[in-house]
C-alpha cells in the first residue's frame, strides 16, 4: 500500500504492536535539557531504574543560561540549581552533556542538526515542543512531557498512537525579501493554531525544495505553533550535502549505506494524506504577528485587524483580548507600530544563515535611538562562525548587543526579558502573553524584518530602508 514518509518512519520503529494498545515506538535519539528533565531523573532514581541507552541520549544547557559572561556561575540561584542538577544527573547516569562554556553548547534544536546527530529516517524526541525542528532533515521528531522523558530514559521507547498526516504544499518561487519565517507564519495564519492538531505536517512543493537546510529548520520549527505534533521535509541532496562531514554523520562505507537508505525516504506518489493544504509562494509577503498567538498574523503591509471583522465568536473574542493586551487599535498600519526591543535569536532563527541575513541589512546602518537589539547565536558554534565572518563587528558597529548562545529572550526564564509594557520585534516563535517577560508584548518577525525594524524603530522590511 502506498505510504506517506511519516508512516514509513513510524512503521520502521514499531517495537511491538497489539490490537487495542498504542504502538511501542523505538526512539533513536533523545535530547535532554535542564528544565524538563530533573523530575524524570528523580523518578528513575526513586524506582531504582537506569538510563537504558545513554549512548542514544545527549544533554545541553540552554533555557536558563545567561548569555553574558559565559563561564561564570549563574547568578539566579534557582536557575543555577537546575543547571547543576542536570550536570549531576548526566554524571550519575552516564549521559553525554554539552555544558555552558563547551564549544558545542547551544539550544538543543540547533546543536542536534549541527553535530550531525539529527539524520533522515530517525525518531527523535525531547522534552520540548520545538523538537519538530529536526523534521527538516527527514526525521520524525516530536516534543514530549517530563513523564515521557522518564519513560524514554528508562526504556528508549514510547507507547504512542500513530499521528495523522497532513501535506502543506508551498508552490512557486518566494518573492525577494520573503523568507522561511514568513512562509510558516502565513501557514499558521491560514490553518490556525489548532489546524495541525494530531498531525505530522509534511512540507512539500518547489518552494520548500528550493530552501536551504537552515530555512527548512525554521519552517519545521514552528509546526507546533499550528498545533501539529511534527514537521517533516523529505530528505534530498540539500539534506545530504548539509550532513556530509558533520561530527556524528556516518562516514566511509557507512555513508554510502546510509545514503542508499535515505534516498528511499519519500512519500509514495499515490499515498493519501488525511489533510492537504496548498500555499501559493508567489503571493507571500513579509509576515508579522499583531496578537498573542502565532496564528494572529498579517502581511507587514496590512493593518491591525478589527475584531468585529471575524465572524467566528471565539476568534473575535480572542482578537479583542489580544489587542487589549498588545495595546493596539484596529486599523493601525503595522508599519506604524513602534518597538523598544529587537531580539534576533532562538531555535527558530538563531542559525548562521539568519545572522548573515540580518547583518546584511544592518551593515553600514545604526539601530534607532532608544531601541535595544540583542543578537543571540543559537549555539557557540554559530557564534564562532559568525565571528569568523566578522558578523559580530557588523552588529556591534550598528549598536546591537552581541551575546553568547542560549534561549535568551525567547522565554522569560533567564535574565534576558522584556519589562512590563515593553514591545519587541522578535525572531522567536511565540508571542504568548508574558512569554518574553511579564507584561511584555511580542511581534514575531523574520531576521530581515527584525534588522530593518531595529533601524527604523517601527516594524519595517529591508525594502523600507533608503
Amino acid at each position, binding site marked *: 500500500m502506498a505510504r506517506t514518509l511519516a508512516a514509513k518512519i513510524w512503521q520502521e520503529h514499531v517495537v511491538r504492536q497489539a490490537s487495542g494498545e498504542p504502538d511501542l515506538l523505538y526512539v533513536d535519539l533523545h535530547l535532554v535539557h535542564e528544565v524538563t528533565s530533573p523530575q524524570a531523573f528523580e523518578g528513575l532514581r526513586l524506582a531504582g531504574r537506569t538510563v537504558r541507552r545513554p*549512548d542514544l541520549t545527549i544533554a545541553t544547557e540552554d533555557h536558563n543560561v545567561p548569555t553574558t559572561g559565559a563561564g561564570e556561575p549563574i547568578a539566579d540561584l534557582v536557575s543555577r540549581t537546575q543547571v547543576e542538577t542536570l550536570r549531576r544527573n548526566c554524571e550519575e547516569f552516564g549521559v553525554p552533556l554539552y555544558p555552558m562554556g563547551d564549544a558545542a553548547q547551544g539550544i538543543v534544536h540547533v546543536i542536534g542538526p549541527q553535530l550531525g546527530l539529527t539524520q533522515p529516517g530517525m525518531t527523535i524526541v525531547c522534552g520540548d515542543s520545538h523538537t519538530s525542528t529536526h523534521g527538516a532533515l527527514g526525521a520524525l521528531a516530536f516534543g514530549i512531557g517530563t513523564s515521557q522523558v522518564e519513560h524514554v530514559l528508562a526504556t528508549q521507547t514510547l507507547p504512542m498512537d500513530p499521528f495523522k498526516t497532513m501535506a502543506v504544499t508551498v508552490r512557486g518561487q518566494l518573492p525577494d525579501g520573503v523568507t522561511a519565517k514568513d512562509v510558516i507564519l502565513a501557514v499558521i495564519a491560514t490553518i490556525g493554531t489548532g489546524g495541525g492538531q494530531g498531525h505530522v505536517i509534511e512540507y512539500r512543493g518547489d518552494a520548500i525544495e528550493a530552501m536551504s537546510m537552515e530555512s527548512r529548520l525554521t519552517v519545521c520549527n514552528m509546526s507546533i505553533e499550528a498545533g501539529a505534533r511534527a514537521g517533516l521535509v523529505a530528505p534530498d541532496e540539500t539534506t545530504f550535502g548539509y550532513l556530509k562531514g558533520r561530527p556524528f554523520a556516518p562516514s566511509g562505507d557507512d555513508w554510502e549505506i546510509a545514503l542508499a537508505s535515505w534516498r528511499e525516504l519519500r512519500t509514495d506518489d499515490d499515498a493519501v494524506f488525511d489533510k492537504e493544504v496548498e500555499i501559493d509562494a508567489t503571493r507571500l509577503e513579509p509576515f508579522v504577528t499583531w496578537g498573542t498567538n502565532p496564528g494572529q498574523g498579517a502581511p507587514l503591509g496590512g493593518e491591525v485587524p478589527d475584531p468585529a471583522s471575524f465572524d467566528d465568536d471565539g476568534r473575535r473574542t480572542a482578537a479583542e483580548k489580544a489587542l487589549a493586551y498588545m495595546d493596539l487599535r484596529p486599523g493601525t498600519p503595522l508599519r506604524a507600530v513602534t518597538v523598544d526591543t529587537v531580539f534576533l535569536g532562538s531555535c527558530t532563527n538563531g542559525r548562521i544563515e539568519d545572522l548573515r541575513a540580518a547583518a546584511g541589512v544592518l551593515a553600514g546602518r545604526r539601530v534607532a535611538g532608544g531601541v535595544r537589539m540583542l543578537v543571540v547565536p543559537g549555539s557557540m558554534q554559530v557564534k564562532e562562525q559568525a565571528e569568523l565572518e566578522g558578523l559580530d563587528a557588523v552588529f556591534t558597529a550598528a549598536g546591537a548587543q552581541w551575546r553568547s548562545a542560549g534561549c535568551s529572550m525567547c522565554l522569560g526564564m533567564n535574565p534576558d526579558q522584556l519589562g512590563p509594557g515593553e514591545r519587541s520585534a522578535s525572531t522567536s516563535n511565540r508571542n504568548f502573553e508574558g512569554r518574553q517577560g511579564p507584561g511584555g508584548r511580542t511581534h514575531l518577525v523574520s531576521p530581515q524584518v527584525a534588522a530593518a525594524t531595529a533601524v527604523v524603530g517601527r516594524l519595517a522590511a529591508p525594502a523600507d530602508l533608503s
Partner: protein
Amino acid sequence: MEKFTNHTGRVAPLRNSDVDTDQIIPASYLKRVTRTGFEDGLFAAWRKAVPDFVLNRPEYEGATILVAGRDFGTGSSREHAVWALRDYGFRVVISPRFGDIFRGNSLTAGLLTVVADADVVERLFARAEADPASEVTVDLGKRTIEAGDIHAAFELDDYTRWRLMEGLDDIGLTLRHAEDITGFEVQRPSWRPVTTSR
C-alpha cells in the same frame, strides 16, 4: 498514580480559547527540580493582574473541574502545566479541543482531560456561571458528563481509560516488553549515530 474512576465537583468556568501552557504556568516557575508544589504558579499572571479572573472569585474557590474554551494547553510541552492544575486541586479539565502534548501529559500524569462538544462546554459555562455551587459528575467508567439536565458522552480510548482506572504506571507496563525492545535493538542499522563517540 492514583486510580481515577469518577469524580464529582464544582466547576471553574474559564471562558478563554487558546490558553497556552505559558499562561497555565509562566516560565519563571519552571526552575524547580521537584514534581510537586506548583500550585502557586497556576495562571500566575492572570491571578495577579486580573482581579475578576475566575480563580480570584470566592464563589469558585474549591472547584475541582476546569471548563475551558477551545485549544486549551497549546504551546510549550511543559508538564508543569499539568502538575500546577493538579496541585491546585483540579482533577478534570473539559474543553472542545486540547493541545496534543498537554493532553498526552495529562493522561500520563492522571489529570483527566475530557474533549466535549462546544455546545456542551457552553452549557457547562452557563450552568457554572448561573450557579457556582452546582456540581458536575465525570464518570470515566461510563465515559459521561452529568450535570443537571446535561448528559453528554465523551470519547477516550479503552487502553487509556483502563490505565487511568487501574492507576497504572506506563514505564512498568512497557518494561514487561523488555525482550521485544532488546530484539528490536539487535536489528537496528549499525550506522545510526551514537552520542558517546563521534
